[in-house]
């Protein structure tokens, strides 16, 4: 639910405003007023921020944050692709078997709620033990907690896949790769996108705790925007915290606007019958 709302989220007037008001004022005027208010608030905050932090920040800081953002972006993208390759087939296999789905679905939802950072020390131990590169091997931690959204959305999609489509596929003996391409993947696509939006958003958040991980005296730094924010927070460097968070917000919003939202609209349009 929340994820669908996120996919469609717009800067729209909260529905708290009583309906009576819309009877007095034309809705268009209310919209303009609301947008104006938002714009003013943003401008004020930006000005305050620039005033306090701008003096201390240089272009080097900006380019550093941008580079780190790029690293984390790459990481999120690779992980989403990997999680997709693993969980989409698994989710389809489960979702098409109602009895199995009934049992697995709550487990997947539990795993999504389970605090993944409890497992981070295990990762630290393994990375140190086998002398692995933290830049690569800390990455999976980012998606540990959020990959399950892909799984249970795909399960939900496959469970909701119409029986008559399945029967048609069976009757015309559509199998193998063609079945994936022409039948099931387009069928679960909107569900998958919903899951992937949540998973990628969650991964961005998780980067802050998973790109720098310590366990006892051992401290591993995986580089990236999350690590940047975590380090600046530790150092109490407000201007750079603000810079890091602003960069992350811009990247997340850009990803939603440029990738996920168009993809969602496309998915929805394609699976609609009316």
């Amino acid at each position, binding site marked *: 639910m929340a994820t669908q709302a996120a996919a469609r989220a717009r800067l729209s007037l909260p529905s708290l405003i009583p309906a009576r008001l819309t009877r007095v004022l034309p809705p268009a005027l209310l919209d303009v007023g609301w947008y104006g208010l938002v714009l003013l608030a943003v401008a004020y905050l930006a000005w305050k921020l620039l005033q306090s932090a701008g003096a201390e920040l240089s272009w080097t800081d900006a380019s550093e944050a941008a580079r780190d953002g790029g690293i984390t972006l790459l990481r999120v993208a690779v992980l989403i692709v990997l999680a997709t390759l693993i969980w989409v087939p698994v989710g389809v296999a489960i979702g098409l078997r109602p009895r199995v789905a009934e049992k697995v679905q709550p487990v997947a939802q539990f795993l999504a709620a389970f605090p993944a950072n409890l497992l981070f020390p295990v990762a630290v131990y393994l990375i140190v033990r086998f002398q692995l590169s933290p830049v690569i091997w800390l990455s999976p931690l980012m998606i540990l907690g959020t990959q399950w959204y892909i799984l249970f959305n795909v399960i939900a999609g496959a469970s909701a896949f119409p029986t008559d489509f399945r029967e048609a596929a*069976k009757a*015309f003996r559509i199998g193998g790769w063609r079945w994936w391409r*022409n039948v099931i993947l387009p069928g679960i696509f909107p569900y998958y996108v919903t899951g992937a939006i949540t998973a990628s958003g969650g991964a961005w958040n998780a980067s802050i705790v998973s790109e720098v991980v310590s366990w006892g005296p051992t401290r591993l730094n995986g580089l990236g925007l999350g690590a940047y924010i975590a380090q600046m927070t530790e150092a109490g460097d407000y201007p750079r915290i603000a810079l890091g968070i602003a960069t992350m917000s811009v990247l997340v919003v850009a990803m939603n606007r440029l990738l996920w939202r168009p993809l969602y609209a496309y998915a929805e349009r394609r*699976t609609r*019958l009316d």
Partner: protein
Amino acid sequence: MSDAKGAIIELRKICMAFAKRSGELLAVLDDINLSIHDGEILGLLGRSGSGKSTLLRIAGALIKPTSGEVLYRSKPLLEPAAGIAVVFQTFALFPWLTVLENVEAGLDALGLPRDESRQRAQDANDLIGLDGFQSAYPRELSGGMRQRVGFARAIATRPDVLLMDEPFSALDVLTAETLRTDFLDLWEEHQLPTKSVLMVTHNIEEAVLMCDRLIILSSNPARIAAEIPITLARPRNRLDEEFGNIVDNVYSVLTARTVASLGAFAQTHEALARPLPPASVNRMSGLIEILVAAPYGGQAELDRLASSLALEINDLFPIAEGLHILEFAELKDRALKLTAAGRVFANSDTDERKRLFREHLLRFVPLSAHICRVLRERKQGRAPRLRFEIEMEDHLSRRDSERTLRAVIAWGRYAELFAYDDKSRTFSVIANAG
């Protein structure tokens, strides 16, 4: 009935049972033997919920029967085969594929070269009247055009046998007639690659118009009740007297079956679990009023009644059945005749009608008396719907039990026997009633 001569598909001793909520099995099909012959259109006719569609799916190996076997060209059919194609009631077109891609998807399994596959799909589309719509998506098409795609997809595979599951029932009357006629034209001109057709329908006229032979199924569980050959020359004309006679004949076989099974139900099943038809009190009293008035004078033939009321027979039937169960009228052969109680009902005022209805409901629908008894026995006078659902599903399919409860709730509310709150799904006694 199951002579193997010229049979393309043969069903032998097919039984089908589904697991109920309680884990027990509910028989849907019982010992069905039939064959689909070379060159014929075979119709499967029965009331809704009689298991016709299940039987069609078994014939195409889409589902496995609980017992019995299916032979296709004398060999056991265990999986859907290349020579068998299905046309679905709901069309079952993939919304993300264009018309041409949908038809081509049906050819996937044949492993044809790309050019040939495209050519075949286009030929089928042209034959079925889809030229010009190749690149459209299903959502851009009307229901009639969508079902044409369903036909094209099936025909493009050049099947021996076409299995059609109520292919026209999701369409409006005019569109359905156009599609039927187009299909019959192709069939009669031998333009279709298909040798035999098995068609499920609940529309008697459609069955008589299209089929060479009809198999009539009884329900709960379905058995073959009758087999009727239709030798009428093609093209057939609905206005022919003989056409009308055959429709009447089929109709009376179907009705006799229903009445017999209504009677049999009381003996073979617990009376509690007798399924009730979806008949509203309004419609039942309306029908009583029409029957008592001129020109009927208390008795009418159902088909004439249906046509004069501009109702489908299938819509009229549940109402007549409701009156029969409540003994306000008697359903016999193809006629509905008011009982004495029905006449009294017609001439009473609202309160008197309610009282009469309540009496009949308690007496002839044991389920309603049972609900009242349960409510009386409980301290708070309330009982969850689930309690009765579970009880009903020991004897009825989920769908029938759902429908039956819905009917008894509507009837019980009118008779003021009990109250029902759909939000909490509970029955309760009415505050000031005994």
